[in-house]
Structures are given as C-alpha cells and as structure tokens.
C-alpha cells in the first residue's frame, strides 16, 4: 500500500510540475490541481497509513490510542482541500478573464511568434 501511495504522489507531482512549466494557462491550472492532489495525499500519509482504524474516539469504551488513526492530518487535509479548491476556482476565473482580454491562452498574454 505504501508503494502504491508513494508512486501515486510521485506521479501526480511529476505531472503537475511538468504541466505548470507549460506555456498555456489551462495546463497551468491543471498542473496546480494535480500538485495539490499530491500534497493532500502527502499530508494524509504523514499521519501514517492505517487500515481499519477510525480517527474518532468512542468515549464510552476504554481508549487505547494505538487502535485509532491520527485524526489531525485528516483535519489538515480537509482545510487544505477547501483552500486549494477556492484558489483553483479563482484561477479559472482569471484564466477566462485573461483569455478574453488578451485573446490568447498564453500565460504571458502574448504568443512568442
């Protein structure tokens, strides 16, 4: 499981970095999206991978912390997802505005040729 997750994060990051270095605005937005997926998975993995372990403690039973997954990274990821979601929306608006104003989808607002 660790290997699959690590490979997934790696592929997401690599594709994301390649895409944000491309000259078109849509590629840029997609690249940032992929990178934010990678980062979210990464934070999640930082709480260690556990199967069959709930993050919420049932207060009626005797609590043994080892039986539970770390809830903090999950809360952090939730915050990070919301923020990157909002930023992507803003970027999309900017992308359309830039396309409308400059007439090209090049990130610098003008094609080189």
């Amino acid at each position: 499981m660790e290997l699959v997750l690590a490979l997934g994060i790696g592929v997401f990051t690599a594709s994301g970095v390649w895409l944000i270095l491309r000259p078109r605005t849509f590629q840029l937005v997609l690249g940032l999206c992929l990178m934010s997926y990678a980062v979210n998975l990464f934070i999640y993995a930082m709480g260690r991978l556990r199967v069959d372990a709930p993050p919420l403690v049932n207060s009626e039973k005797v609590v043994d912390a080892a039986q539970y997954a770390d809830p903090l990274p999950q809360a952090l990821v939730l915050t990070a997802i919301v923020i990157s979601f909002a930023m992507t929306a803003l970027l999309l608006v900017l992308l359309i505005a830039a396309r409308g104003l400059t007439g090209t989808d090049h990130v610098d607002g003008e094609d080189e040729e």
Partner: protein
Amino acid sequence: MSGSAGHLVVLPILLPLIASAIMLLLDERQRKAKNAISLATHIAMFGVAVMLLAQTVQLGFSGNSATRVYLIGDWAAPYGIVLVADWLSSLMLLLASVLGLASFIYATARWDRAGPRFQALHLLQMMGLNGAFLTGDLFNLFVFFEILLAASYGLMLHGSGTKRVTIGLHYVSINVATSLLFLIGVGLIYGISGTLNMADLATIILGTRGTELTLLQSGFAVLGVAFLIKAGMWPVGFWLPRTYATAVPPAAALFSILSKVGIYALMRVYLLLFTDEGGWPANFGGEWLLYGGIATLIYGTLGVLAARTLSRVAGYCVMISSGTLLGTIGASDGAVLGGALFYLVSSTLGIGAFYLLLELVERRETEASVRTIVEPVFEDEYTGARPAEIADEVRIVIPATIAILGGGFMFCALLLSGLPPLSGFIAKFAIIHGLLNLHETISPAVGLLVALMVISGMATLVATTRAGIDLLWTPSDRPPPPLRLTEAVPIGFLLLVCLGLMVFAGPTMRYMERTGISLQDRQGYVNAVLGADSSTAEPGAAPQ
C-alpha cells in the same frame, strides 16, 4: 489572563472579520456607509494594537514575561489553537495597522471605486496579516497566510485591466505553488514530530536523531523556501517588483508589509526552533539566508538603477529591504536583531509612503489614462464616480501642491536610501555597527553584506533623484492636479510616524533590542505558551 482585558489579543482578528462580513451585506452603492464602517474598524484595530504594545511595554519593562497567550476555545496548548502576543507580535501588529489605516484612508479618495468589494478585501487582508503575526502554530500560520494571500489576489486585481489580469495570473499561480511547498513542509514536520505548535516543536525537535533529523530538516528547508518566496529573496523573488508595480497604489502600499510577513515567519520559526542545544546545528539555514540576502541586495541594487518607472523603483526597494534583513538575520544568528527590526519598521513605512506618494507625483503624466483602465467585470460593479459625488468632495487646491509632493518625495528618498538624519539611517547604522562588532575578525561575506548595504542605499538615492528631477522639476504646461486632503493625510501620517521613529530613536531602539532578546529567550516563550492556564476555573470541563 484575567477579565475582558485578556480578550484584547483576539480582537485584531475578530474586528476585521466581522466588519468584512458586514461589508458583504451592503450594496456597492452604499459606499459611504462601507467606508465609514471600514474606517472605524481600522481605527479600532490601530487602537487595539497600541494597547497591546503598551501592555507589552508595561509587562516587559517591569520584569514580567511580556508573552501573553490566548487559548482559543479554552483548550490548553499544545492541543488547542493558541494566539501569542509577545514583543515581536505587538510590534508587527502595530506596524500592520498603521499601514492599513493609511492605505485605507488614501483609497477612499478614489481607488475604492475602481472595482467591487474593495473594503471587504482590504479588511480581510488586515485579518490575515494580524492572524499571521499572532498565531502560535504552523498550520494556522498557513491558514492566515492563505487568508492574506486570497485577499491580496483580490486587491492585486482591483481595478482590473489587461495588465493586472496577466500579472495577477502569474502572482496567483506562484503563490498557489508556494502554498503547496508550505504544506509539504508542514506535513513533513508533523509526520516526524507529531505536533505543529511552535512552542511544543521547540522542545520535541531537540530529541530528533538520525534519518528522522534529516527528514525534519528537509521539512524546515521546504518551509523556509516557501517563506523566502514570500519575502522575495533572489532567485525566487522575480515576481515581486512587477506585481507590486501593477497593483493599485493603496494595495501596493499594503503589500509592502506582505513581503515582511515572510521575514517575520522566518524570524519566528527559525530563531525559536534552532539552537545549539541537543546537537542541532545552531544556525540552520543561516548561510543560505546570508548568501541569499547578498544576492537579493545585488539584484535589488541593479534593479533600482535599471528601473524606468517609479513604481518599479519602489518594488526593487522592497527587495533591497528584504535582502538587508535576510542577510542580517543570516549573518548574525539573531544577534543584531534590534537594528534589523528597526530597519524593518522604518523601511516598511517608508516604502508604503513611497507607493502612495509616487502615484500623486506620476499623476500628472497619467491622469488621462487612469479612467480607461477601469472596466466593470461584475454586474453589480459600480465604476467611476457619479458627477454629483465629485462635486461633493472636499478638495484643497494649493498652488504649492508640487512643493508638498516634492518635500514628501525627498523625505521618502532619504528614508529609503538611509541618509541621515532620518530613521532609515539610524536603522542601517545600528545594523552595520552590530555586524562589524559581531566577531573579532570580519568574515568576507559579512564585509560584502555591509558594503552592499551602503551601495544599495546610494543606488536608491541615484534612482530616486533621477526620477524626482524628471517628474518634479520638468516644467509642465498642465496645471498640477488638485491634491485631495484624504490623499495627503495618510502620506503625512506615515511620514510622521517615520519622523517619530527618528525623534524617539532611543526608546524605540530599546524596544527593538528587548524584542531581539525575547526572541533569543526560547525557554521563556515555551514556558509561557505551554504553561498557559485555562482562564476558567473548571479544568477538564471541555466539551465532548
């Protein structure tokens, strides 16, 4: 913490949050009501910041710990979220509120009408700044960074236009990518240490060894890169001058503290966490800061000389100021902090005033083109003033407008280039004096840093003088535009504060020195945060 006075710490975050929420309920046509509420909030924030600073001074100089801890929801640290107001936080809060107040008053003259929801964005920007200065854990630092960045995207795009949208696209993308780096750093640190509370981290990381230590240091290095991108260090600061030059002047003035947030975060995190106790490298990343600072200074100096518009000059001044601060922190491991903090305050205010002023100076050239940049984007947007409103405005038409502008311009130029007798000189002198007395022998890098500080001052002087002669001395057949009171007052206010820094340099310097000492006193900070009692008398009454 006792009574309602303890809640003072949370007010700098709550006030702008509530006020900006109210802004959204008001229509764009109720501009006067919006401006009145925002102005009242800004003044209240200024008042709160002054009170917090007074509290710090009162507590600190009477021998107590000046670090006040506010437990949100009354959960004890390190499990709950803490806000920490200490020497450095109080200072930065006051600096932010002074700049916020000035740039807001300036904006009410006309820039608030260049686009929708200016007031709400401005207030949220203040909330993000205040929160970043107060927070006591790394993840909330990230959240407040995002709040201030999200608001700054709005302010950056305020006024719209092709140029702002294209540059804004770059600015937003760079900062979204930076935020991802921030998260990777935070994730690594949490993965190794299991905590994000800075006070808790300071104790826990001392026990890290072996591969864990390597991973933890990588985490801090990635986090540091994120901070340095915000601070505008070479080679990751190329976006800065262009972005700041494109933003509307009041937003640019407020942005001058944005790059200082990165420096604040570096000071807070690095000085608190890295000591020579327990086998940690005492000056982790210090060399990077020193050489990065030197490179930033060189780039900024060349940029200032090459820049052809004043707003670019101001942008490179931000880089010079960042470079000076980074180099000083890196070279001294926090020993010359007094002078560095003095420089931080003086240069931030100076650059803020410069951004506001240069629009007035350049207005003669650009008066006609300003109107055309303004285009409506949203349906409810309301661009341009109604003719009746223009007639209502209080204006003072002084024949000597140019004399006032020229005086202010000269003041700013002296301040930024660090010439006596203004506060910029005192600050640079304190830094250089501190750096030269640091060790028995002066290392070549430190010598280079000192030389570059002096040279960058001269370059700034050359650039501003050249621009000043161009803009102020060249006879123009057009009459000077009327100087509005609401535009002159905030610039005067900022320059007056700088003048105050110079006149009361003794007490100010004492405060800065004390702040430097408090940053070295890691144990004091850790004890204050982790030992903070719940303010209620019932321990364990936390909700399930």
